[in-house]
């Protein structure tokens, strides 16, 4: 049920071939192709929901894949390719957000939760144990009575 929704949109938005990277897109140089695949996996297909251009069937994703490969063919480094795509489409295209002020909370969440948890545990360890309520005279008598009998 859950996974169908993005696919639904993908299918509605195009009537083209099913597979993502097409055989005709593959670069001759396997090393370059591997780099292209790695870069593509980190770039978002802008018209899809949470799919990388490497996974997506949308025509726009294909265009982007071809752009990535074209830049690589012209000798760009991986960062240059990514920067070029970000320059054209903005930060939204990055599936892994950059670390900066507006994403600080996002990246620091794991550490913050761990730190808060550790702080809580430390606090708890320092606190004296729960104070047991003293017995009422009647209860004390009952205890004494039991102790005498056994």
């Amino acid at each position, binding site marked *: 049920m859950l*996974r169908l929704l993005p696919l639904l949109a993908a299918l509605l938005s195009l009537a083209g*071939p099913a597979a993502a990277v097409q055989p005709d897109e593959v670069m001759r140089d396997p090393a370059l192709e591997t780099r292209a695949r790695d870069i593509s996996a980190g770039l978002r297909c802008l018209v899809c929901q949470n799919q990388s251009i490497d996974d997506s069937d949308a025509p726009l994703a294909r265009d982007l894949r071809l752009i990535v490969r074209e830049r690589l063919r012209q000798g760009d480094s991986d960062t240059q390719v990514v920067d070029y795509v970000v320059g054209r489409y903005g930060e939204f295209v990055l599936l892994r957000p950059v670390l900066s002020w507006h994403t600080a909370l996002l990246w620091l969440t*794991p550490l913050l939760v761990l730190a808060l948890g*550790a702080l809580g545990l430390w606090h708890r360890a320092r606190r004296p144990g*729960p104070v047991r309520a003293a017995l009422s005279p009647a209860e004390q008598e009952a205890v004494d009575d039991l102790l005498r009998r056994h």
Partner: protein
Amino acid sequence: MLIEAGHYALALALAVSLVQAAMPIWAARAGDPGLRSVATAAALASCVCVAFAFGALTWAHIVSDFSVQNVVENSHSMKPFVYKVSGVWGNHEGSMMLWVLILVLFGAVVALARNAVPATLRANTLGVQGGISFVFLLFILLTSNPFARLNPAPMEGRDLNPILQDPGLAIHPPLLYLGYVGFSITFAFAVAALIEGRIDAAWARAVRPWTLVAWCFLTVGIAMGSYWAYYELGWGGWWFWDPVENASLMPWLAGTALVHSTVVMEKRDALKVWTVLLAILTFSLSLLGTFLVRSGVLTSVHTFATDPTRGTFILGILVLFIGGSLALYAWRAPLLRQGGLFAPISREGALVLNNLFLSAACATVLVGTLYPLALESLVGDKISVGAPFFNLTFVPLVVPLLLLVPFGQTLAWKRGDLAAAGQRLLAALGLGLLAGLGVAAATWGGPVAAPLGIGLGAYLILGAAMEIAVRVRGRTLGLSLRRAAGLPRSAWGTALAHAGVGITVVGIAAQAWSVESLATLPRGGTLRAGPYAASLDGILPRTGPNYTETVARLTIRDRDGGVVGHIEPGRRFYSARNMAVSEAGLLTLGASQVYASVGETGSDGAVGLRLYYKPLVLLIWVGAVVMALGGGLSLTDRRFRVGIPAARARAREEAAAMKPMPAE
């Protein structure tokens, strides 16, 4: 007529659930325990009503009653029977009906579980349950009526979305909902405990089976969804960190933490306040999982519910349950007495660490899923948070947790000895490391981190086996066997579940060696992926009950050229919706798979083929099933079968009822 009766039954269930919600409070006010039994009757009655309504809707789908709007929009007279039934919950209205049906079913089981739950707690729990059913029934009746009629009735329905016409999707939502809704019981117990202001080991024992049941179903439900995505989406991935997947992972992580913290509470009477909070959070995340996806907040284009009144109602429900229960928690939790003490190095300590890491992982997923949304609405910046982010943050949180698992199992309660535990685990650690190094040596030049993953998985499996071995080891075989038989089933369940985690880890790590090949293949052409090669025998057209398909017949050969099997990936065309769906071809070889998906057939008869070799991929889901089996085994433990000493509890209750209570 049946449809109207179903609609009426739903309205009746609404009224009954209101009684169910109000009665325990009234009973407590009036000081009349007899009134409490009304909640039991109400829970059973609302179960009967909702079951009838659900049955009526199902019947309309089975007989293709196209005067019902829901059937028209999601069914077709030519659709196979299975999908006529599963189509009931393959849409917004029907899935809400399924949700409520499962909710009242659980309610009825709690109502009938006389021995397992103390009477007051049971009544209050049923009251909270009643409140939840009331709100959801109201939601269905006001905004998502599945019984709406169409006049005039069309001759034919618009068919179920082809992607949903799959056996995997027929059972995935019910399993997932059994998990989500199962946590509502734990939530109801927690709220009941807060209302009573009292919580003890008996509470934990009463809650634990429900938590385990929900957790098992959720585990299998998520695994099922993941396997479906793997074979249906056509690019061989098994987890995409999609918001929709994250929505089900979050309650699972919180639920896993809950399953562990209730152990501490039951055995040692500690971590009470935290456990109650966790129970509230787990169900809150389940609600979020059900509704954030539906309300259209997360995934604008892809949701069933685009109606703004639904969105507002859903927001109201979330605020009511999450906000209300947390407010109740803030108010009443200080009343709960803290229990047993323990040293930092102890099983309790290890379980606290488990909870800490699971909470951090859950928070990471939650923040990662919602952050783009929050940032856009607050600042206006648009960012994406996708798989690379989650892999970078989630994995480092999970690895230390997994390293900890066998230690947690080995350490003693109250005060443990880390050195002794290390000694007992030395063999598992050593063998795990050896396995990792062996794999690294055998695949030198390949992936770097993956051998460590294999080693980690092996360590988890061996650690679980070792725990059992140490506990049953005797001088003779007979003695060992007797000890093994005497070992509580929960111990076996724990070991099995932890071994399941190890199996999944091995499966995940092995994906580093999966091979993908891509080519446009002419007839007779061959494409190689890893140790296997596929050759295209031909393209065949076929007709299904409500679709036509083109399949590519492939012969799979191993390195020596021997035929190991045939697969037929294809593309199906459903004319009712004018949609095409690709069907992957899978050949299972042990735990590994050869996976093929095809694109369009060209005019020259050549076909775009994508071929994968996925080593040990099935272990990912087998591990999840083993985890759930471990949970199930733990459920059959003697202490749950026996329940609380019922006779004594009942006698005491009767005595209390006879004696007029002095005013406090």
